[in-house]
């Protein structure tokens, strides 16, 4: 997975392309555009309706994964080893079918932003008491 030199990474990337693109079109029936705007960090959770029978295996997995815990789009794509675009298309279908939903409103004020930053610092320090930050 990790290669020590950049050259290897470039070659691996080039070789992977065809297989990845084939997988993309296969799971989405050739669709490459999602109906919902989903960012890589968009969090998804279970919807109100159970998924209809006969769903594609990948879609069933997505519903399962989001039922276990809320997960962002990038995590779903990485877990399923599918390109983000493919997962966006499937997720959009599942949202429209009521099988997935957006659990957290993506709205934040400047004030709560600062609170969030303090919560991150506090949490990281608690988990890593030996971590030293650069002062300033």
């Amino acid at each position, binding site marked *: *997975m*990790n*290669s*020590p*030199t*950049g050259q290897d*990474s470039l070659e691996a*990337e080039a070789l*992977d*392309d065809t297989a*990845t*693109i084939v997988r*993309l079109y296969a799971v989405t029936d050739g669709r*490459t555009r999602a109906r919902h705007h989903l*960012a*890589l*960090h968009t*969090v998804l*959770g279970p919807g109100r309706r159970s998924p209809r029978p006969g769903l594609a295996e990948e879609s069933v997995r997505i519903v399962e994964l989001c039922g276990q*815990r*809320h997960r*962002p789009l*990038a*995590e779903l*794509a*990485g*877990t399923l*080893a*599918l*390109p*983000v*675009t*493919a997962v966006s298309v499937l997720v959009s279908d599942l949202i429209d079918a009521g099988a997935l939903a957006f*659990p*957290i409103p*993506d709205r934040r004020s*400047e004030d709560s*932003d*600062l609170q*969030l*930053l*303090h*919560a*991150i*610092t*506090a*949490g*990281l*320090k*608690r*988990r*890593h008491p*030996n*971590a*030293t*930050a*650069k002062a*300033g």
Partner: protein
Amino acid sequence: MTQFPQPATRATAKLVIAGGFGVGKTTAIGAVSDITPLRTEEVLTTQSTATDSLRGIEDKTTTTVAFDFGRVGWDVPDPVELYLFGTPGQPRFWSFWHDLSEGALGAVVLADTRRLESSFPAADFFEQLGLPFVIAINRFPGTTPRTAVEIREAFDVDEQVPLMFCDARNADSVAGVLITLVQHIANTKSANSALLDA
């Protein structure tokens, strides 16, 4: 304080880990992540010819880029889930770097003293984007020591940008870099709102 059983209640935040090839991005994410970093792929479609795109797919080039995803979450003192996105080695596809940075609070530019210049594009990118970032030098053994002053000069970034050394394999060390980043983001925000209030 009560433990929240549902990660559902966690506030989410996004940070980006960037830098040149092989500087230790995946290693750094893995050091602090609750999950093994996921190598995640995206397919990019770019217009290969400026003329006559009516014929559709034949005029488009499709490429794959890979990035890392990791996350670390906790419920005390406040429930937070931190998403860590690792960039591809080079900002070859600017539009994708924008997607990776969308909604991010800030970024770490990781660098290796043997090839500092491979991380310059990342620093330039965040500077132009106006996203707060820190520079973290991942010290590989056997590398010629260089001073922070030398490195800062080479990067030619604003004096406010924190610069520090780290070991990407060490969780505490990476956590220290993230804490420095988050404090820098908070300082930047406070300074900006003080300016607005004045």
